[in-house]
């Protein structure tokens, strides 16, 4: 029920908003706020209530496909958090837009609700065709809003945005159609099974088709042409939603669709990771030179998302929670910064950072908030950004020191451009005389402040985020199996699904650290022996390990010991 | 053998008349040749055992539709347009394209084997009415199509009447003229 509400109710809200007065933003904004709060509350409830799925309703048949397309929603931790981001950012967007737009507020709210519905659908869809439907549907409200409410070059921006994203996902549509003509239906598992029977060349082609759509949406390095102009020209509240929630659809696609469906070869994983890192560094370098405040933020988000994609393709055990925390943190902080930049633009009448300056003195509350959020986006420990970036770095370290070094360079650069940004916008003296525009109102300030506080809270206790994460848990897999194969060969599907979804599936298993057993010790002993340790050395080491695992109650130490003997074994083999 | 002779004669008439449509200068002559084609086609229908269609062809097609056409042509005096050339450069292109298509399709036809089936039903009035108005659940369901067709005819009549109404006032046609620009 919650899922249906979150996906369909925004559209209903958009339709209801039509009934409100176009001339009177006050009444329509009240209704919009009400809806916005309701959606945020629902998304929190969704996170709190864990994994759930709706009944699979047959929607329609695609000619040539074996099975039906289902209207089937499924919420796992990742999707639920993304839904939270989309609804929370939409609410704040509605709040900040209230002061910037007067007459057309109603239409803006309609667009935002439609966008929110499409985004929620994207993040919750369990059926590939449904996912694709919403994935495309996101583009239209966003493009219309950009064309309707954007800056000077809004038409060009809207066209660039729409064409880039639609063309980018066209190959995915073809690949998807091809896949569902082979699969039993369009759910993840059956797609994965269908793909297994294809020859490698076809698999690679299909993979590239799918990748392209998400690469463009995220965006990743050579496909980022739409991003800067779109984020810069879109109205600031919309830019916040675009970067905070919509661009996450790309990363979400990598995690929820690419990884489970495609058996990835090492080259693909490696090149995707490097592509992510190149994006991260490239974005940071571009941000260093950007003079348009919103473009700077756009490149900064590109940099962060590149890091997230690199993290996804590190495929380490801790990848999923790490990337999720990073995404949530980035969504909140980048969103808040876009809102603030919008307020600065409204206040000073320009978004050229060379023209801005001295806002800390002219508008101290705004200045403090701006500085506060800039610091939060710098991944200072104690903020959610730090937890995300540190854990992503840790995942990257698994792939070797070089990726981690590149990511470290990216962090240094991020500090550089962010400080430059802060310095140019709020410090120093204004470069020109201007009339003050509308100041930041209490409701805007407090809503953005709440986002900052959330970042701190998540930073000190990221378990709020990571606990919600039970992607592809047992019951869901079984549920899908039932749908795929009513009775007879559920067994085989499960087996094959396990192998394909391995990258994801062992996340949960690995999370449980096992205490040392005698078997482990025996195993270790033989390992050591094979590596040329003398008898006394082995005995002493094992005695120590035994002592440690007995005496230490806390599992931290146990893990340390476990890891230690692994490390020893590893080093021993290196030594040879 | 006799059937073949009848067929050849009728076919020759039909083709010659069709070519007449193609080469006649005045649309009135073209229309009359077309009627001739249709009549000979009706004969062929009868020859191959579908007399009902042949009769309908004569009554509805040749009788009603073509007469309407000829009537309109005679009403509009300017229908004969001496300024417009009969053929132009495009025509050659068209002929080549059409012949290419025809050649390919004909090639395909010649390749595919077929022969008359002895059990084929004769397209009599009885057979037609039995199938067309079979309203039982297991039947072919042509009657629904029949009703839809009735609606189509009704609506096309309505459309024709609407357009005819516009013709009555000259102001409207001026407005149309503007709109067309």
């Amino acid at each position, binding site marked *: 029920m919650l899922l249906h509400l979150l996906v369909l109710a925004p559209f209903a809200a958009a339709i209801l908003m039509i009934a409100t007065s176009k001339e009177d933003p006050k009444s329509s904004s009240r209704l919009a706020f009400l809806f916005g709060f309701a959606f945020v509350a629902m998304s929190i409830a969704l996170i709190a209530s864990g994994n759930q799925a709706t009944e699979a309703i047959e929607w329609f048949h695609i000619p040539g496909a074996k099975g039906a397309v289902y209207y089937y929603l499924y919420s796992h931790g990742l999707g639920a958090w993304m839904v939270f981001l989309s609804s929370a950012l939409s609410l704040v967007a509605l709040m900040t837009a209230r002061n910037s737009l007067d007459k057309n507020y109603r239409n803006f709210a309609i667009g935002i609700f439609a966008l929110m519905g499409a985004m929620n659908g994207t993040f919750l869809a369990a059926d590939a065709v449904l996912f694709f439907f919403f994935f495309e549907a996101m583009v239209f409200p966003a493009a219309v809003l950009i064309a309707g409410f954007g800056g000077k070059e809004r038409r060009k921006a809207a066209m660039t945005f729409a064409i880039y994203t639609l063309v980018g996902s066209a190959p995915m549509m073809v690949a998807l159609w091809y896949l569902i003509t082979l699969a039993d239906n369009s759910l993840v598992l059956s797609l994965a099974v269908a793909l297994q029977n294809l020859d490698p060349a076809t698999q690679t082609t299909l993979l590239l088709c799918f990748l392209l759509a998400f690469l463009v949406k995220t965006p990743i390095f050579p496909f*980022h*042409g739409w991003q800067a102009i779109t984020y810069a020209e879109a109205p600031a509240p919309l830019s916040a939603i675009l970067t905070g929630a919509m661009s996450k659809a790309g990363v979400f696609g990598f995690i929820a669709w690419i990884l489970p469906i495609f058996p990835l070869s090492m080259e693909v994983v490696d090149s995707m990771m490097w592509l992510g890192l190149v994006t991260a560094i*490239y974005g940071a*370098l*571009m941000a*260093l*030179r950007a003079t348009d405040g919103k473009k700077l933020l756009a490149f900064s988000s590109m940099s962060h998302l590149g890091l997230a994609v690199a993290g996804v393709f590190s495929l380490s*055990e*801790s990848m999923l929670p790490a990337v999720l925390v990073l995404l949530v943190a980035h969504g909140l902080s980048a969103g808040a910064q876009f809102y603030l930049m919008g307020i600065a633009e409204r206040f000073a009448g320009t978004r050229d950072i060379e023209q801005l300056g001295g806002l800390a003195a002219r508008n*101290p*509350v705004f200045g*403090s908030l701006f500085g506060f959020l800039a*610091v939060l986006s710098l991944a200072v*420990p*104690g903020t959610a950004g*730090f*937890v995300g970036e*540190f*854990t992503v*770095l840790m995942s990257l*370290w698994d792939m070797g*020191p070089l990726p*981690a070094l590149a990511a*470290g*360079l990216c*962090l*240094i*650069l991020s*500090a*550089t451009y962010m*400080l430059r940004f802060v*310095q140019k916008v*709020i*410090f*120093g*003296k204004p470069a020109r005389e201007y009339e003050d525009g509308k100041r930041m109102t209490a409701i805007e300030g407090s809503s953005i402040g709440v986002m900052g506080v959330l970042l701190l809270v998540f930073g000190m*206790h*990221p378990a709020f985020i*990571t606990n919600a994460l039970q992607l592809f848990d047992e019951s869901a897999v079984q549920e899908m199996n039932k749908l795929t194969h009513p009775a007879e060969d559920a067994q085989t599907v499960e087996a094959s699904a396990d192998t394909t979804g391995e990258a994801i599936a062992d996340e949960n298993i*690995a*999370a449980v650290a096992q205490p040392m057993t005698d078997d482990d010790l025996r195993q270790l002993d033989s390992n050591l022996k094979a590596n040329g340790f003398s008898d006394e*050395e082995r005995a*002493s*080491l094992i005695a*120590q390990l035994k002592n*440690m695992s007995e005496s230490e109650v806390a599992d*931290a*130490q146990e893990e*340390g010991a476990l*890891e*230690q003997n692994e490390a020893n074994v590893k*080093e021993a083999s290196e030594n040879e | 053998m006799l059937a073949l002779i009848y067929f050849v004669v009728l076919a020759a008439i039909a083709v010659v008349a069709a070519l007449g449509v193609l080469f006649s200068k005045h649309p009135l002559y073209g229309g009359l040749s077309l009627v001739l084609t249709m009549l000979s086609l009706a004969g062929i229908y009868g020859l191959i055992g579908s007399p009902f269609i042949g009769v309908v062809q004569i009554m509805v097609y040749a009788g009603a539709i073509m007469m309407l056409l000829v009537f309109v042509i005679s009403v509009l005096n300017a229908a004969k347009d001496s300024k417009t050339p009969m053929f132009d450069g*495009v025509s050659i*292109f068209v002929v080549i*394209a059409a012949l*290419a*298509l025809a050649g*390919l399709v004909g*090639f*395909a036809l010649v390749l595919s084997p077929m022969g008359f089936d002895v059990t084929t039903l004769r397209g009599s009035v009885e057979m037609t009415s039995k199938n067309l108005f079979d309203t039982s659940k297991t039947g072919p369901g042509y009657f629904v199509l029949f009703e839809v067709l009735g609606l189509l005819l009704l609506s096309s009549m309505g459309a024709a009447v609407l357009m005819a109404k516009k013709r009555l006032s000259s102001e409207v046609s001026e407005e149309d003229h503007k709109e067309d620009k």
Partner: protein
Amino acid sequence: MTNLPLWIIPLFPLLGTILLGAIAVISSGSKKGPSEGFVGALSVLFPVISFVCVVLLAFGMPEEGIRETLCNWIDIPMLKVDIGFLFDGLSRVMLLFVTGIGSLIALYSIGYMHGDRGFTRFFAYINLFLFSMIVLVLSDSLLLTFLGWEGVGLCSYLLIGFWNHDLNNCKAANKAFIVNRVGDIGFLLGMLCLATLGGSAILNYEALNKFVEMLIAGGHVELAAPILMIAGLLFFVGCTGKSAQIPLLTWLPDAMAGPTPVSALIHAATMVTSGVYLLARLSRMFVLVPEVLLVILIVGMLTAFWAAVAGLFQNDIKKVLAYSTISQLGYMFMAAGASAFDASIFHVFTHAFFKAALFLGAGAVIHSLAGEQDMRRMGGLIKKTPVTACVMIFAFLAIIGFPGFAGFWSKDLILERLYTNAPFGEFFYFAGLLTAVITAVYMGRLIIMTFFGEYRGSKESEEHIHEAPASMLVPMVILAFGAVFAGYLWADSMGIKFFANTLAPVVGEAQSYSLGAAIHHVNALTFACFGTAAALLGMIIAYVVYGRARIPQISAKESSAPVGSKADWTFFFDYIHEIFITITKAAAFIADMVVDKILQAIQWTVGSIAEIVGDGVSTFQVRKVRVQLTLSLLGVAALVAVVLLTGGLF
């Protein structure tokens, strides 16, 4: 009184931050601002309370320290970290002087910052800094230390750029933060490196020590050494960033753009010593890799020597002190490199007193001269501000290692340990001694130029020179007492080893491992004599060179930065950093102007081709409907042909 929970220590400064921050934000709209007395009282109260807590805890501390795990912090696969605190000999010392000096400097700042528009904001930052610093030294795991580590860097950024309407301050602040960030990444990667060795649990200090013990006991040191060496080097990069060592030291002189109490608290007494703290904290790990220790030793020596020479050329009173700080930090690193971690911490301790006193004294001088920082416009101030002068002179004697003063004990100890412990000990001892001479020279120059001779500023400004208010003098005097007597906690030649004993549980084992059985026993008195001689020699040189009023008159416009070859020496590392900055800028330029333009060109080409094709087809279509239909006819023909040729797909 040991039943106090540990989290109460950082709690109060945090409360202070939140409270003062709220006051600052709320009152920012009003013209007048909140009452300074009220805000000042609040801002001193919180550090003092946590100081009292530290003292109470310190006296009842058991030998092995107090451990306390507050709650779970990060819990994901591969990374499980708790928020936990560790109160042992090392953190006791650090906390005592961090909170103590922090409280004193907060008190001093009330006078110094009087009338500033950002009065409340300043104290909010100071409290935030104390919170971060307490977390840094109190935490029981590297990750939480890193929280404090970045936190103090952030506060340093905020406080250097405190007067943010001047962009130069902002730039100095940015520089400090970015250079520190480079070091922080080293720290971060070091943590990752350790984690690959032993899982995330090893980030806990206790687990790390256990791990090291296990390695030693099992005889697997040489197996782990390569990874440990990389980790050690990375951690050391982190330390060089925070503690302004070669090569990441350029930010500290620029950081003097901040208010003077900030320089005293952050850039002299506490924050910059956190690198030394980290070395001591990880001493067990570092002693396993003597190569890294050697690197530390060499870097420390070079830094100490270079900064001392650069200090000779400075005209800005605060810059002299900044370079002196770098130089003294170099001493501490040398000590750590010679695996004399207790001596380095002892020097941190004494240095905190005399350097804070020097900075506060300099602040008082600047305050009395209404913002003048150029020493060439000072002179003869001993008559006008006798108390400040006395404080400064005591601290001066302490820093040059005059017998009996605090610096004497700690510096001598370091030199002695260098001689006995380090490889090529004689060489490093000599370098240290030479640096001590130079230290005495530039500090003597500072004292002479500031307090003796004739006043060289303008006449009208001479009228306004006045002694600082009591709220500034009291902390100075207390610190001066510290500068004199702090050294007696470990007066080696007098047989007092209190300080060494308190640190023994933390670093003792590491040191004994590093030294092995062969501990040289030398006559401490000999070293004391050499040290004293160096100090005296330096003072004499200073008097000969600068004592006879040979200070050139300067025009009012001239900046206080050194020029010519002196500048080359001073800014040597700035030039090196410039190379990296240029590379980054070039990369950004290429990304922006070349790569992005190429991508845009491709994008534009594809777009325009599509447009041209579309235009062409549409003009084609408009004119001839029949042609278009015929084309479709041909299309059908082509399809038929395809079907015929392929024989049909189905």
